[in-house]
């Protein structure tokens, strides 16, 4: 019986997910520009793993494979995870993280639409807890490493674990700008001096700050296409800015400037691509503000006072836990039942 609407807006889950993937391209392009093509290898690896895991899980769960495999959601998880881990990571790190994200964080909770946690961030959390050392060796941006690996050398390391003879891993990789800041602060150096180190650029890390700008570009596209609303990026970045600003005002020698925090690490990726995941996020406008503000605050706290190099992933997961509660308490009033009912 056809009793619902006979027409529908030409839109689909796969089209939405595809637009988000497209929005990641400027950031990825800048990534390649500054760090070389290794990231494309991990994105490809993650994509293949995600699709294979998705297909296998759908088969196991006795669900139709084709409509779900073509919804592009597994690809998006794969890309976000790949962008969150060091590009020069061994192949199995990407595979393990992605397979865990898709199989456990997504399908064991019921598949598309039912996962309470952001699968990519679960994958990241598993990797950073299980393989912390592999998660800290980030490629140095162009011109900063002692030596620069050719693409063939990068492939050899990713798949074989061997660097060209005479080159040590430390020579081609570095800690992230956030990580470096944290360890240097422990040596009682002032922020200003630390940020003068060659890995830092105008705002945050050399290279990574430009990638962050690429993500902003993609985020603007998502806002323009109305895939996301302004609530989450604005509340997340706003809270991060204000929190960082307060600490910076208290002690500029010990706490980096707010703009540093906005462009360092995964802040922009989180603001436009990770926290905006609708499935694991809240649904009401007010809820989105609370959710993102909480994530912004937690990100700062974990970054500055916690033990992990970045806080976005854990802040996201912690706020994911709160989503049902936030939704329940932020239901907007319905038609005619607002204050006064008029205007």
């Amino acid at each position: 019986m056809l009793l619902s609407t006979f027409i529908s807006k030409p839109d689909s889950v796969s089209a939405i997910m595809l637009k988000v993937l497209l929005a990641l391209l400027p950031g990825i392009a800048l990534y390649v520009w500054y760090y070389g093509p290794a990231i494309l290898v991990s994105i490809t690896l993650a994509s293949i793993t995600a699709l294979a895991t998705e297909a296998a899980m759908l088969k196991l769960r006795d669900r139709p494979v084709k409509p779900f495999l073509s919804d592009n959601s597994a690809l998006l998880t794969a890309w976000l995870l790949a962008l969150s881990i060091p590009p020069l990571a061994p192949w199995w790190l990407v595979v393990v993280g992605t397979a865990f994200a898709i199989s456990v964080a997504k399908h064991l909770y019921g598949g598309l639409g039912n996962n309470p946690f952001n699968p990519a961030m679960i994958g990241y959390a598993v990797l950073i807890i299980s393989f912390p050392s592999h998660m800290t060796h980030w490629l140095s941006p162009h011109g900063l490493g002692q030596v620069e690996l050719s693409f063939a050398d990068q492939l050899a390391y990713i798949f074989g674990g061997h660097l060209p003879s005479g080159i040590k891993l430390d020579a081609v990789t570095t800690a992230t700008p956030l990580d470096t800041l944290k360890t240097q602060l422990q040596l009682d150096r002032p922020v200003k001096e630390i940020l003068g180190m060659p890995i830092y650029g105008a705002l945050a890390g050399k290279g990574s700050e430009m990638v962050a700008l690429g993500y902003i570009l993609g985020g603007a596209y998502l806002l323009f296409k109305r895939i996301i609303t302004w609530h989450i990026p604005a509340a997340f970045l706003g809270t991060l800015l204000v929190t960082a600003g307060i600490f910076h005002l208290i002690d500029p020698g010990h706490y980096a400037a707010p703009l540093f925090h906005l462009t360092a690490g995964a802040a922009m990726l989180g603001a436009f691509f990770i926290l905006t995941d609708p499935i694991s996020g809240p649904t009401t406008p007010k809820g989105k503000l609370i959710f993102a503000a909480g994530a912004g605050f937690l990100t700062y706290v974990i970054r500055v006072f916690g033990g992990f190099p970045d806080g976005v992933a854990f802040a996201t997961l912690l706020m994911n836990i709160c989503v049902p509660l936030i939704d329940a308490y932020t239901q907007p009033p319905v038609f005619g039942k607002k204050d006064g009912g008029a205007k």
Partner: protein
Amino acid sequence: MRTLYQFHGGVHPPTNKTQSTRTPIAPAPLPGKLVIPFHQHVGNMARPLVKAGNRVLKGQLIGMPEDGVSSAVHASTSGTISAIGMAVVAHASGLPDLCATLIPDGQEEWVTHEGMAYRTAAGADVRLALRLAGVVGLGGAVFPSDLKLRSGKHKIKSLVLNGAECEPYITCDDMLMRERAAEIIRGAEIMRFMLDAEEVLIGIEDNKPEAIAAMQLAAAASDDKMEVIVVPTIYPSGGAKQLMRILTGIEIAAGVRSTEKGMQCFNVATALSIYRALQFGEPLLSRIVTVTGNVRNAQNFEVLIGAPVNELVALADPLPDTNLYIMGGPMMGVPLPSAQVSVVKATNCIIAASDKLFPPPPPALPCIRCTRCAEACPADLQPQELFWFAQSKNFGKAQEYSLFDCIECGACSYVCPSHIPLVQYYRFAKSEIRALEHEQAAADLARERYEFRQSRIERDKQEKAEKLAQKEMTALAARQSAATPEAAADNSAQLRIQAAVEHAREQAAAARPKNIDTLTPRQQAEIAEIEARRAKAREMAHPDAGQPKE
């Protein structure tokens, strides 16, 4: 310049209206047979006044309105009643209803009729005249208009005339306003007079410039305070509550009457039929129907009530791949059970549908909580939550999240990227809740009866015991000529029991479910329809199960 307000949400589906506005309204030729249902309006079915074999005149009353909410039914032309019996009617349930079959004689011989002096007659008489003329809301609700024209205890400030016609494909109101604006305005004047309203606000979407111009011209000629207000094209601006919100900024919550906020809303076509009924004594015998969709010549026709849909659509030349006819628009319309059904007062549009015109949606994916539905909802609901609760049959939660405020406009289904038929889930949940409450009410009644019976048995027992005791006591008193009766204590025990029974009864009354207790007649009719649909659905689901036990 008037300030216009916005309602939350809304969608912009392709309007597809120009196909059917290229030619003027054409009178549909007299069909070979008319099948006129006795129940075309909200409320009680009209009582048949004719028998098979009777000759009837055009405009003759053949269905008498019953008490309460009801309306009259007339012979749409002169001819002979060939049968009174059950026939499938234009309703999604596909269930048959009582109809009169009329074979026209082609004479179009009118019953004697004349207008009335509605400005000097008593209000009750004018309303009775409308009731007997079978005038009901032609915007789709088919609620008897006379009941909305009482100037009740609330002062009516604005009479709102709804010419928004927001649903795609439908153009019957548009064409009516272009061609008969003056008569619509006359009708509006009558309604304003009956309601003693201060002003008449006529809302028309800005995609109907010709209608706006015609209505402005006609309104300017009126002595009443009338204003044609051009509203932006956005679905569902033609929902009565949404239009009133746009025009006045006032929102009317579910379950609240618009008169409480000083407003009453009518469709433009209803205004015209009120004018015809009171000025000329012409009952509602025909209406304008848009025939469009998968046809070569989409057009509006003036169609007699009871004319078969298949003869009507033939006039528009449907394409061969047409496989379904929809009554109404593509957002809220219902599929007709067959093309053999007849046009009724609620038939504003017939869309010939094909798989090419309305491709079947791809299989639904799970909800990804993207909240496009919430952004589109004109009732400010959270459709994704309601869907979740309806799907998991968590009806208590669904009601907590205002399920019954849903107007079933379909905006959520329209925007859903997962192609979930959301409205269908809400209809399902609503009908399940009503069914449960009916069962609850029945169970409450049974329990009440049982408890009453128990208390009666108890009382009888006590009375017997008392009598016995009294007898013994009198005997004792007779013997001892002195008595210390314990009747007083006994009596107080009985009082306590009575009080307890009373209390239980009060509690049961207080706990009666609210969704079926304070229903408007329209809701009652809706429930009846839904019940019918449920029955049909059950039947389809279990064809061999036979009669469901209820």
